């Protein structure tokens, strides 16, 4: 088990990618570029998951977020935005107030996280075979949420079809 206080060079590179592309997602003027940077940012998060020994989660992140959600976003941008290539102001009049309060929040949060020494660090390592363990857990201990989430997906699928389909059909 490595020292919880230290991180390697890979962490700094990945967090730089995540944060910079995250900032671009919320500040760029072209919404299509935002979607592309969202993909980059989410891929960076997948890298962070690998650093944290969550290989299955990283794969799921790439498949679901980068593969599905981002592509869906790009589709929606293409379908709806006839302004995809124009530069328009993308922030509203709340920007200054929001910026100040967000900075205040994050400074407070960072200070709290840095100052907190109450963590009860574990001594044993994570299970070696990440994917197998997750699979077994989903089929045993976490079977109920696993089943209920499938109900949720049914509901979401029906809902999306109802909303998106044309009335003439």
């Amino acid at each position, binding site marked *: 088990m490595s020292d919880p206080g230290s991180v390697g060079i890979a962490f700094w590179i990945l967090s730089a990618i995540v944060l910079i592309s995250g900032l671009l997602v919320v500040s760029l003027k072209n919404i299509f570029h935002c979607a592309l940077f969202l993909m980059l940012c989410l891929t960076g998060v997948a890298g962070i998951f690998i650093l944290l020994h969550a290989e299955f989660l990283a794969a799921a992140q790439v498949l679901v977020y980068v593969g599905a959600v981002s592509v869906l976003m790009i589709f929606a941008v293409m379908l709806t935005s006839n302004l995809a290539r124009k530069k328009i102001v993308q922030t509203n009049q709340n920007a200054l107030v929001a910026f100040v309060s967000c900075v205040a929040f994050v400074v*407070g*949060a960072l200070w*709290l*996280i840095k*100052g*907190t020494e*109450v*963590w*009860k660090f*574990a001594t044993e390592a994570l*299970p070696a075979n990440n994917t197998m*363990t997750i699979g*077994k*857990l989903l089929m*045993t*201990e*976490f*079977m*109920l*949420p696993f089943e*209920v*989430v499938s*109900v*949720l997906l*049914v*509901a*979401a699928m*029906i*809902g*999306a079809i*109802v*909303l998106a389909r044309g*009335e003439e059909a």
Partner: protein
Amino acid sequence: MEFQLPEINLQLMAPEIFLFLWALAVMAFDVTTKRKSSSTAGNLALVGLAVTGVIMVFTDQGRGFGNMFFNDSMAVFFKVIFLAAAFMAIGSSFGLTHTRILNHRGEYFGLILLSTVGMMFLASSSELISLYIGLELTTIPLFVLAAFFKDDRKSVEAGIKYLVVGAFSSALLLYGLSFIYGLTGTTDIAQIRSILAHSAVAGFNPAYQESTPIMVMAVLAILGGIGFKLALPPFHQWVPDVYEGAPTPITAFLSVGSKAAGLVAFAKIMIMGLYDLYDPSKAPNDWGILVGVMAAAAMIVGNVLAIRQTNIKRMLAYSSIAHAGYVMVGMLALNSLGLASVGYYMFAYLFTNMGAFAIVALIEDRTGSCEIASYAGLSKTSPFLAISMTIFLLSLTGIPPLAGFFGKFYVFAAAIKMAETGSGLTWIYWLVGVGLVTSVFALYYYANVMRTMYFVETDSPLKVTMSPMAVAVIVIGVVGVVVFGLNPQPIVQFASDMPAALGALLP
């Protein structure tokens, strides 16, 4: 690491499984019958809810799926509320089946049932992951239902606003819950509580009687998330727009079912999980006073802004903010009376609000208007509607002997009893005072609707033809309000089992 198949015990969740399958059946039926018969899907949905209720009578209480599923008396009580709310929402939707939801009747009723299934899972979850999934299964169908009038701009706007607010509050809630997991190392609510009570290293330090700053941040994020769901100020701005734009029966379902679901989530996380952060015997009430301020703000904001509204749906939206405030007063009274009073209040609110919205839906179907001014002369053209509406409004105000009065009475009584037991709880008296004063404001705007119905003369009074199903829902509401107002004892008895469900942890 050991893997064991937990004891599954499907019998405990028979009502949920049945309702889920029935929802699929309703949708499949509507598709296969080529959508010919106009009210069959709705009737089927009503039958499904009734059968689910019957199944619940024969369902035992207990744990299933390891520790994931816990059908305790609190879950049973709230499941009854959810089923009744869905029943009345579907009953008041029949006016829409010929017109605005013509092409998607099956999906409309099916999604209401699926949302109800989510609420039921939420009520019996005893672990953060399944609680979160239940919460999302509750809200995701509601996003769709709010936007169900696809060519009505107001409805679509209500849908996207509700979705953004719902997802935002989920993200806030999850961010807070992630710290709870980090501080305690578990997502099981009972274990979280025992770790916080006994361990000095976690987020709460019993030796100093105060939370660590990181725990405060987590609690703030969770309160923000649940505050959005319950529409407590300062997280209430979305409510009037969403309530006005959504289809009226869905608004009714939102204001009762979804609110009760939020209350269950609050009770599970804050009271069952984080009770030791608010223990009146250990003086600083970390989150208690904060929720108290939010509740007071809800009562003031809701009642004062409701006065200015001319649209009855917006008025009832603000009034629902105020009622969320009253309920939270009862929630803060952590004695055996507190949770029971919350249960009774929600039961009274169920009949009152669902009934009132059923009338609003009926009148909207017939006239297309939700303006209070268009209710002028209602007492002449349809005295039944006017009298029922008056009963509902009086109950919302809290006039004895209707159910709404006893709801407020029990809530305030529980709060005062709480204030007497603990030290440093004098702020609860102030809270009760705010509640009493704002109730007077409430009388003003509710009376305005009654005055319009009875005393305002108009050249073109409303002519409302009634459908049998709408009448049935309104009658259920009136009977509920009057009977449980005159004789509140059965519900109080039923509700007073709930504190025991919290593991006998309350004084």
